[in-house]
């Protein structure tokens, strides 16, 4: 049994494994990040800059929004101005002036369900990443957002026949106003913090998904977000409602070409799993190293529902992501697996999952693995809260950090608030620094320095790899090896 992990030279397949092979898309996306994806010139129809009431009214008008949405945006703007900047952000972000960014960019293209309708210079981004091809082969539905607007939205017939709704949120707001209004910013109120408010004011594009009762989607659906230019803000909103007894796997992909200056991302994800429903949400964040990334992620799980977060926080310069689940129904459960990689001077990866046990017999598990080298900084801020009355609840947290050199830093700030006596909360944290002696030992077994390093790193995240679908394990493996190659080049 112990050889499962090396069988045929591959990583162990788990029961979680999806019956599809996404290697091609993943490889393409990795290669693109490392060599292929270039910034290209494309025509912009509308650009809005400057954070003001006027800008927001203009965006709302372009989108032909109902009155309530405009009011929500304006209220959000007020909140953004009032709320303090979180004091734990790196200094540089405290001085970030959002008004210097292009806050809304509408590319010169109408939303379509045919790749042929998309101008060549924009389509190239997606072709290089292999997205149209992977859509054809593996996905049940895809919404592609370019800059601020969804430019492509398509759902396969097998899904629409079952009543699955998948479209950009703007469209959902018009066609399904009741359900949209019921859930939009319900679990993640714009008043939550400064950047949630900013998102509320400026949100544009994203994905809305509704899965009807007892419908289980066997092929994953994807939202793919591209930031095409520098000094840009992207604020997409993803909203998934899984009705009773349903199942969906949503994949979120992010990409940006290497930019000269920086760009800013402040997205939001809201997941609603009704009774007995299960949502799996996988993010491969592979922004280029000039992107400042905020992603506000929160889910709720009703009775017996399951939320699974999987997050690979690999790219970007600064990243702040804390997948959170509110377990509000009896027996609800949630897992969150997060791998972060801070691979260079000035890189800052802030992560940490939050689990709120608000009902009896709820279960949660957090596994957070941070890898740092070349002077990168990893920070874990997590929370497990067990409310009074959530009896019989169980929570497990594990946050580990691996540092490959002396100048790299890792900090962990875990919080447990257990207000119910009849609850079981366990916490583990380990910090590893790769030592000269470990490296020397492996080299004494004929393994060269670079391989020895990646062995240590991959060994460190083995626990998460085992729980990932095979394709993602392969991809993580590859990204990490590529990042470590840079390390070799420096050393």
């Amino acid at each position, binding site marked *: 049994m112990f050889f499962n992990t090396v069988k045929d030279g591959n990583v162990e397949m788990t029961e979680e494994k999806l019956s599809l092979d996404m290697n091609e898309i993943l490889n393409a996306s990795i290669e693109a990040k490392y060599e292929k994806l270039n910034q290209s010139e494309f025509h912009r129809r509308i650009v809005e800059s400057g954070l003001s009431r006027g800008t927001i009214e203009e965006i709302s008008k372009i989108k032909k929004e109902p009155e309530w949405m405009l009011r929500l945006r304006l209220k959000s703007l007020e909140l953004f101005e009032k709320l303090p900047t979180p004091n734990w952000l790196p200094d540089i972000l405290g001085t970030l002036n959002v008004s210097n960014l292009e806050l809304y960019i509408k590319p010169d293209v109408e939303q379509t369900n045919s790749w042929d309708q998309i101008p060549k210079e924009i389509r190239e981004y997606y072709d290089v990443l292999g997205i149209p091809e992977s859509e054809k082969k593996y996905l049940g539905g895809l919404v592609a957002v370019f800059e601020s607007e969804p430019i492509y939205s398509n759902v396969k017939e097998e899904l629409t026949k079952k009543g699955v709704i998948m479209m950009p949120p703007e469209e959902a707001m018009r066609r399904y106003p009741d359900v949209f209004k019921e859930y939009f910013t319900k679990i993640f109120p714009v008043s939550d913090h400064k950047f949630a408010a900013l998102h509320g004011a400026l949100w544009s594009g994203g994905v809305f998904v509704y899965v009807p009762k007892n419908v289980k989607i066997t092929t994953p659906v994807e939202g793919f977000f591209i930031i095409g230019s520098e000094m840009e803000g992207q604020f997409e909103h993803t909203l998934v409602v899984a009705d009773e007894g349903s199942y969906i796997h949503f994949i979120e992909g992010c990409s940006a070409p290497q930019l000269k200056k920086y760009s800013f991302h402040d997205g939001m994800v809201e997941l609603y799993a009704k009774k007995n429903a299960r949502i799996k949400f996988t993010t491969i964040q592979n922004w280029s190293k000039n992107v400042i990334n905020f992603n506000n992620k929160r889910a709720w799980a009703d009775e017996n529902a399951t939320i699974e977060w999987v997050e690979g926080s690999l790219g970007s310069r600064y990243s702040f992501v804390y997948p959170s689940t509110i377990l509000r129904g009896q027996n609800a459960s949630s897992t969150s697996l997060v791998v972060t990689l801070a691979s260079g001077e000035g890189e800052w990866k802030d992560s940490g999952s939050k689990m709120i046990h608000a009902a009896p017999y709820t279960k949660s598990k957090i596994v957070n693995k941070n890898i740092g080298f070349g002077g990168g900084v990893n920070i874990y801020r997590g929370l497990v809260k067990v409310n009074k009355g959530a009896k019989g609840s169980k929570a497990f947290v594990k946050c580990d950090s691996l540092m490959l050199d002396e100048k790299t830093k890792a900090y962990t700030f875990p919080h447990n608030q257990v207000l119910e006596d009849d609850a079981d909360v366990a916490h583990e944290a380990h910090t590893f620094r790769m*030592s000269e002696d*470990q490296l*020397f*030992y492996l080299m004494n077994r004929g393994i060269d320095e670079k391989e020895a390093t990646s062995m240590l790193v991959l060994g460190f995240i*083995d626990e998460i790899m085992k729980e990932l679908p095979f394709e993602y394990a392969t991809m993580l493996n590859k990204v990490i090896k590529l990042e470590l190659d840079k390390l070799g080049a420096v050393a």
Partner: protein
Amino acid sequence: MSILKVQDLHVEVEGKEVLKGVSFEVRSGEIHALMGPNGSGKTTLSLAIMGHPKYKITKGSIILDDEDITNLETNEKVKRGLFLAFQNPVEIGGVKLSTLLVAEHNRIANPSGSVTEIIQRIREMTKTVGLSESLLNRGVFEGFSGGEKKRTEILQMMLLKPKFAILDEPDSGVDVDGLRVIAESIKKLKEENNTGYIIITHYRRILDYVNADRVHVLYKGALVASGSMELAKKIDEKGYEGVIKS
């Protein structure tokens, strides 16, 4: 027939000279013992030969079959047939022992072997050295007993079949059964592979088992005595003092 020559080796650790000109040579199939009081530089010698970054060779050379390998990368030395069994190997929690064994087997012993063959070989070796298969599934040396660590080092030696093996106290902290298994493995590899050995030890017992050819005594960074097994007998009876002063 191979020859490993250590010539006038001077080694510095954190600015302090620990080895002050050590020379000896070992041929294929020979078993040399390296003895000497604690702190005399035996482990330093083994780590310096393999190229640990903290142990700086300031003078002298290491020659393997007419090739100067003094400044080669550690893994290159291993590829050329050197092996070190550590006295107290470092724990590598994240890497499974099975992963490590497969990796080193692929790189050194038999690069073209199929996965099934490798697994088969590793299983056999595990049995031969008397290790439980469950250890293969653990992190390297994670929660291993002293004896299990030594047996694991010997297991790797058997797997890699080196030309020359330096064994740093393979017998310390090992029970009687363990000692026999380790000695048998040493003899077996000598017979099958004509491996030459440098065995660092404080005890005559293992040397009797394997029938050592030469015994050297290292004291304050220099070889002060060399001889046959008689020398080991003398140390056993009279302690180092008698040998060093005489």
